[in-house]
């Protein structure tokens, strides 16, 4: 299964270029994003997004999806209309989100935040299946397996869009659990003190149909999902299920630990999550803490909830495709491991490799 189109919008701005050569960027500083007295002491990664855009899951998704669809055809201009019209007839949509279109429930007091998928599919004239998966922070990681299933059902392509909008309720939840850092998201740093939420959408277009594949960013070579079954919100300190997830994804990809050149862990900045990941990754990828082998994405865009794995997949795909070209290092990346954990104990691990 190949990734043939990408699109995104985040606190860094709109478009793929915002994620080129991340390692040369300084970590982003969040701001006091909520005016309510109860939350105005908390930080949020909103960046260049205005309040209306940040709050609207629908608008964020639409921007990212449009870019991904256009990106998939950009190098075959003469066939663009033909591909666009014919391919869109059988493209499915998988929306991955933790809390849905929270603008509906929080600003308009409507009861259904999870009706976005149909609206997006109709707006983009996608006539394949559309569905929403909400596995909290692992939503996008789990969604990759659904994309493969939908391609096997006969769709020409599947658009995966991870999206998380700015949400008062979500901010309150994280504050009540005492997992918000008062300063910024500083994953794996010794003085880290929690995570900081962000918003945005990342879209990836998947295909198994070579006829439609003008450009291949990367291929999905392995994946695995499981559940800690330990606690509603905290990961299992032993890391056993996370380790099993990573191992099974490598087995499904027929790869070993040494074949992985790039790690994008969940790395939220919380004491517990980061300790588990650091202990585990330093054991099985001892060289991974070199600066160009591990990307801690949340220090740039915050914790984007259900979209976080989609952003990780997007960045990994860019690194694999532009390996040695658009990065300030000249490292040649062969494969990347993207892992995430979530409320409910859901773990996922996806391996992306350089496309043929």
């Amino acid at each position: 299964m190949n990734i043939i189109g990408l699109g995104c919008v985040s606190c860094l701005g709109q478009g793929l270029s915002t994620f080129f050569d991340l390692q040369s960027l300084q970590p982003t500083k969040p701001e006091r994003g909520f005016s309510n007295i109860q939350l105005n002491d908390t930080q949020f990664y909103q960046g260049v997004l205005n309040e209306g855009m940040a709050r609207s899951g629908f608008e964020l998704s639409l921007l990212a999806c449009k870019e991904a669809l256009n990106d998939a055809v950009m190098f075959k201009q003469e066939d663009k209309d033909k591909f666009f019209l014919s391919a869109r007839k059988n493209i499915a949509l998988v929306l991955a989100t933790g809390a849905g279109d929270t603008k509906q429930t929080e600003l308009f007091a409507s009861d259904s935040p999870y009706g976005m998928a149909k609206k997006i599919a109709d707006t983009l004239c996608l006539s394949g299946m559309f569905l929403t998966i909400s596995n909290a922070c692992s939503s996008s990681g789990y969604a990759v397996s659904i994309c493969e299933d939908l391609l096997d059902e006969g769709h020409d392509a599947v658009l995966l869009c991870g999206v998380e909008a700015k949400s008062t309720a979500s901010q309150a939840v994280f504050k009540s659990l005492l997992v918000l850092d008062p300063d910024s998201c500083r994953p794996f740093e010794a003085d880290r003190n929690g995570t900081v939420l962000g918003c945005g959408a990342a879209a990836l277009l998947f295909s198994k149909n070579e006829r439609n594949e003008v450009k291949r960013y990367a291929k999905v070579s392995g994946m695995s999902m499981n559940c800690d079954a330990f606690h509603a919100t905290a990961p299992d300190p032993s890391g056993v299920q996370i380790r099993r997830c990573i191992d099974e994804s490598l087995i499904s990809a027929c790869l070993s630990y040494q074949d992985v050149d790039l790690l994008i862990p969940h790395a939220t900045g919380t004491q517990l999550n980061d300790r588990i990941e650091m202990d585990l990754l330093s054991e099985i990828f001892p060289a991974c803490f070199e600066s160009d082998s591990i990307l801690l994405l949340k220090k740039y865009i915050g914790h984007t909830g259900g979209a976080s794995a989609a952003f990780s997949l997007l960045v990994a795909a860019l690194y694999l495709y532009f390996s040695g070209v658009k990065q300030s290092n000249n490292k040649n990346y062969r494969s990347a491991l993207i892992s995430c954990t979530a409320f409910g104990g859901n773990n996922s691990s996806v391996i992306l490799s350089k496309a043929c």
Partner: protein
Amino acid sequence: MKRFYVEQAIFVTGVFEGDAAFPNDYKKASKDWFNPVRYLGKKGYKYYSESLRYVLAAASKLMIRDIAGSEKVGVFIGTDSADVESRKEIMENLKAGNDVLIGAASAPNCSVNIAAGTMAQKYQFKGCSFTFTGPEDAALMALWKAQKCLGSDQLEVAIVGQVEYINDQPQKSGAILWKISSSDMGESSVEVQNFQCQRWVGSPDEIDRWLPVIDDAPIYILGKDSLFLKALSSNLEFKGHSFKHLVNDLIRKNLSSDLYLYSMLSFLILKKISGNIFVVSSKGHVYFLKLKC
């Protein structure tokens, strides 16, 4: 041939509780119809949302204790409203100017996947667990994915279902859970074959996809009146197939509209009705399956 087996189906809803065939002496439920003590005992769920209590109540009636601790069991839940109650509480506290918007013990209820996660934790199910969201057919998507996981041997057993909670009409709320497996567990289980889903875009040729697998068993259509149901009906008639559109006004009027499709399918399972089943959502998704009882 793709197949799985439904061993049990349990209702914990305002309209009906249990796993027998639908009773004839239905009495309209009151707002406090649900008694968690009957299912969960007196303690251990004080900070759980109503929707989470419904799911755990239904799970308590499934025969799943013997598969506790397995890495080959997963939970698949569909819902449109499981987190709404808790998120509304936060917004109401915000409007009221309260200092604390939500307590730490209740906060996890705001994560819509907490029902699947809590069930996995309670029974130590370590396989993959999914929560699908959206109106009408989220549970059918959950069933589709569960079938895929069984078919690829990722899992041996899946707990699949739906939960909905309507804040001001709790009597229309509830949970329905199935226990499904890749192995035939005997006479009591219902075999499900060829479960597929497709978006219906209106072309008459689309029905051709299912014609090769429709056998001589009766054809039933489940779904509310919609453009897509009419299109499917017309196409079946055109191809010379007779069918029956099954409706249940009791469910339609007294249960959350999002629970309608899954509850209708569940009743076919409980009543052991064999046939070629089309389930049509008003969004244009068409699900096909064969039930063999």
